[in-house]
């Protein structure tokens, strides 16, 4: 008898749940946190991109000076060093791609631009630049 009562109550509750307006409409998948692989551990939302920000920012400034002084290979070496310091910074790879593109080294430029896009470019200008390199090189 006890079990039967429990079954009856459970049935009532389940029926109420089924009628609830909060139930997801079939066919609409629930989308979770798009940035995380494991929900129990807070993900590094930037995947390490912000590490050593100020150091890399200074390197990028130095790179511009080297390019203005007509020293692109030295600039590339500095950018490669920056990539060792902050390996997930998309703008480092983008800058490498831009330099290689200017040097007409498309096989190197394209790879850098794609890597930059994959790591996530944060500004429209950067995205456009990467796209320009990729499409420009495919035409060459």
């Amino acid at each position: 008898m006890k079990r039967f009562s429990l079954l009856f109550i459970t049935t009532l509750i389940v029926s109420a749940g089924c009628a609830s307006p909060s139930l997801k409409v079939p066919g609409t998948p629930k989308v979770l946190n798009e940035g995380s692989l494991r929900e129990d551990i807070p993900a590094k939302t930037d995947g390490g991109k912000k590490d050593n920000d100020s150091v890399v920012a200074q390197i990028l400034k130095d790179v511009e000076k080297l390019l203005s002084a007509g020293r692109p290979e030295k600039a590339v070496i500095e950018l490669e060093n920056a990539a060792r310091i902050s390996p997930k910074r998309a703008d480092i790879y983008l800058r490498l791609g831009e330099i290689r593109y200017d040097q007409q080294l498309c096989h190197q430029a394209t790879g850098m631009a794609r890597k930059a896009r994959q790591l996530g470019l944060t500004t429209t200008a950067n995205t456009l630049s990467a796209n320009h390199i990729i499409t420009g090189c495919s035409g060459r």
Partner: protein
Amino acid sequence: MQRGKKKKGTRVRIWLFRLFLISFAGFASWLVYLDLIIKAQFEGRRWDLPAHVYSAHDTLFSGAPISIYQLEQQLRNLGYTKTVSPKNPGEYKKGGLNIDFYARDFHFFDGLRSGQLIRTEFSETSIKAVIDKKTGKQINTFRLEPTLIGGIYPDSNEDRILVRLAETPQIVIKALVSSEDRGFLDHHGVSIKGIARALWSNITSTSGIQGGSTLTQQLIKNYFLNSERTLLRKIKEAAMSILLELHYGKNEILEAYINEVYLGQDGSRSINGFGLASFFYFSRPLSELTVAQAATLVALVRGPSLYNPFRFPARAKTRRNLILTHLLKSGYIDRKVFEKETEKPLHINSGGKHHENLYPAFLSLVRQQLKRDYRSDDLKKEGLRVFTTIVPRIQTIAEIKLKQQLEGMEKRLDLKRGELQAAIVITNPDNGEVSSLIGDRNLRQDAFNRAINAFRPIGSLIKPVIYLTALKQPEKFNLATLLSDEPFGLTDENGLVWQPQNFDHKSRGKILFLKGLADSNNIASVRLGMQLTLGEINETLKSLGTKKQMEYPSALLGALEMSPFQVAELYQHFASGGFSTPIQSVLAVVDRKNRPIKRYPLILKQAVDEKSVFQLNFALHHATVSGTARSIGLLMPKIEAAGKTGTTDGLRDSWFAGFTGDRMGVVWVGRDKNEPTGLTGATGALQIWIDIMKNISRLGYNPALPENMVTINVENNGNVTESNCPGAVTIPFRKEYIRERMSGCTQRKSKLLKWIKGVFE
């Protein structure tokens, strides 16, 4: 009669004169011949200079993950001396959470980095600030000079570091001249006074045998002749000395001597010249030697074995003090300095092997990669400087952890010590640079490099290639696709049936694609491979840069032989997010005058589309959470990783290949005789991998979800469900291929059904 006698006498005189002319002509020709030899060999390049190989350098910057202890250790490895206050290059001071050091000048492959006084301030685990002590300003980045890790030697096995006379400290020259050849500036190659003095000293004195040879003669003997003690050799030596002095000035001769003289032996490598001897005995450049240290090196000239400071320290010290006495008597040092320097201990570099090949396995990789671009002779003779990628700190950790783990495993498995062998390759996933390479558990062995030359079946390490091939067909496969795990057999052309089995010999009906890889399911993987065809999988292998191809279905379970290095090349594609970047050990090569010859820049090429590799890596990550590599989740919870275990038949090979955000590593454990180890990939190689990675990796694997991908909850039956459904997994999907049917939570329903059933039973 008298006329006859006169005629005879004249004839004799004529013949004597002719004999004299012939002898003179012969002697003159001989001198011309010797002169030609001297000019031919002494001009231009005078020595076969080995290529010197450097490690990667540390870059110091605010936030750099280098502790105060690590920096101090590195400075000591570089031969820096601890002092109260660093005033000269090569000195450092440690106080509180700061290290001040006076950096040396160093020629990197892209230019000279001048020496300067630097302060580094630390927090517990990293650098807080790098400051130029002269200006007080913070420096953005500072490159510490790399470690010299070995060389590529000429066939003679002579090693040397060339120094110019101008770079040689005066005290070294004075010690040399005052003890070996006081009349060096006055004689013309041979010193009659010196010979007489030596004869007299040897007869009357008990303070040791003195030689009568000048520095010029010693140079001739070492450079052109041998140590034969014959009259003819001595005459030749004297003649050549005079000829040498006719053609070349005292400075040139002295400089050649300083670079030629034999000063010790290190295994098969001979230590030649003061430049190298300074590093070998004192771990510092010649310019940084103290008076006592300079005297110690000069003391070796007379007998590097006899006065070997490692083996005969007392004798070496006595000889050193004799050199100091010569310096005092010649007025080059005063009594105060003499008394102070004679009291000093020898202060020999206790490792004694500063430029020995520290990492033979890595060096053999460097040689292999350089051979593509350089002739063997150039590598051995031109004095090239090679800048490589090895990170000594990481290499050391890998070596220590490997040793500990192997010994522990042998103990547990009741194996004799040394039975198990291993190979390790660790790279930077973003640029392919080799941070560490081990080819033998006997780390200094240069015999067989298992990392690059041991080809072993890779077992389940091949499975990601199968699953990747499938994911490249998103209309047919995704991580929630159900794969059949039903047993089956394949019949070959001889009628033999091959029935792949799961590790636990159980079958699970239908399993998620994700779990097929994460749990390393054999039956599902082979079924999937056969569905895709070996041809398609081979195309994937090709796109991943490997020449290995599958010929038979058994290759789907890894009956495919690869070296750990080849596995690293394969997995580099996964670790980098689908990019192909050559795994490299060399960054750049410059010539002996530091002029750039070749640089190996970063090259990236997208080999696999981003979404396919993201999903693959998701499954490889899942393996570390609840699959065959779940030890990672337990033992290394703070750093996310992804990877694959591999075990071959009979437990002969134990593999793990995996990566975090900043390191990719491949570990192999096995026995050279191919006997069973008793280890699976999870119990063997993986444990070594974890022990190394948790000490070297700082960035977890956590890539951003690509564009047009979402994450969805899926049950084990492949249906989309709610987030709180027991047993559901969260899986990334390409938006355009999302399954739309939502089924509720089967797990919860089935538990409820069971309860209801229980009511009526």
